[in-house]
């Protein structure tokens, strides 16, 4: 089990959203760079264990596209989308779609960077096309059959 930092929170909110927040010990210009420069993204935007990231292209302008591909043993998993809004270093809005989507429609991702006392809190909000889609996403992950322990459950419930 990977250690969970108390400042990392993942929640399914409303009908169509999943929201993640986490804080980092760096000014937001740097965090923004790490989220938008391919050579930096490749260092941390990992796939599942054992996967590499051979493709990472970012055309950082409104209407520009980005594309990520992860690979393992000849198997590929790719995704990409279009930037809708870029307010450096505060906010990025983009569409998001997997190459072989198991759900309908695009998702919209909004990332915000808020700096306070030299720390940056990153909030990533994914909004799916509909509630059905969000629930399908939830369903797909559940087939993996991981047991959620009571402790983790209590943690999740406590994180508001």
């Amino acid at each position, binding site marked *: 089990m*990977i250690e969970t930092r108390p400042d990392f929170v*993942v929640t399914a909110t*409303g009908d169509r959203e999943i929201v993640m927040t986490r804080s980092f010990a760096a000014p937001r210009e740097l965090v923004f*760079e790490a989220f938008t420069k391919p050579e930096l993204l490749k260092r*941390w935007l990992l796939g599942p264990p054992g996967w590499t990231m051979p493709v990472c292209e970012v055309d950082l302008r409104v209407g520009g596209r980005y594309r990520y591909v992860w690979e393992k043993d000849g198997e590929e998993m790719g995704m990409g989308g279009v930037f809708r809004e870029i307010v450096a270093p505060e906010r990025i809005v983009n569409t998001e779609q997997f190459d072989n989507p198991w759900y309908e429609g695009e998702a919209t991702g909004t990332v915000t960077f808020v700096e306070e006392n030299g720390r940056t809190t990153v909030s990533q909000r994914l909004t799916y096309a509909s509630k059905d889609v969000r629930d399908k996403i*939830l369903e797909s992950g559940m087939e*993996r059959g*991981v*047991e959620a322990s009571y402790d983790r459950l*209590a943690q999740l419930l406590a994180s508001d």
Partner: protein
Amino acid sequence: MVINETRLDATFAALADPTRRAILARLASGEASVGELAAPFSMSQPAISKHLKVLENAGLISAGQDAQRRPRRLEPQPLAEATEWLETYRELWERRYAELDALLAEMQSKPKGKKRKKP
């Protein structure tokens, strides 16, 4: 495993309320009567009963056989299904963010003569 989507909807709807999450967190440490569950809240017992009804309809809790106390207890399965996906997602992002921590530390320790703007 086939997931009942209707139940999943009910689970997330039930979890959307802070009072209900607090009730579930309390029940995670053992069963409790309605009175015991109401105690920490500045809320009437009927109001608490309403929340309990939502949780019960979602299959998240059940009422015990003891006719007098009818203690409520947690039904772990629907919650496990709902949290499982979040766990998988969380673990992937936990790894990514740990790498990002390291990268950001490195970027700050050796600026390599790169100019950095102050906010």
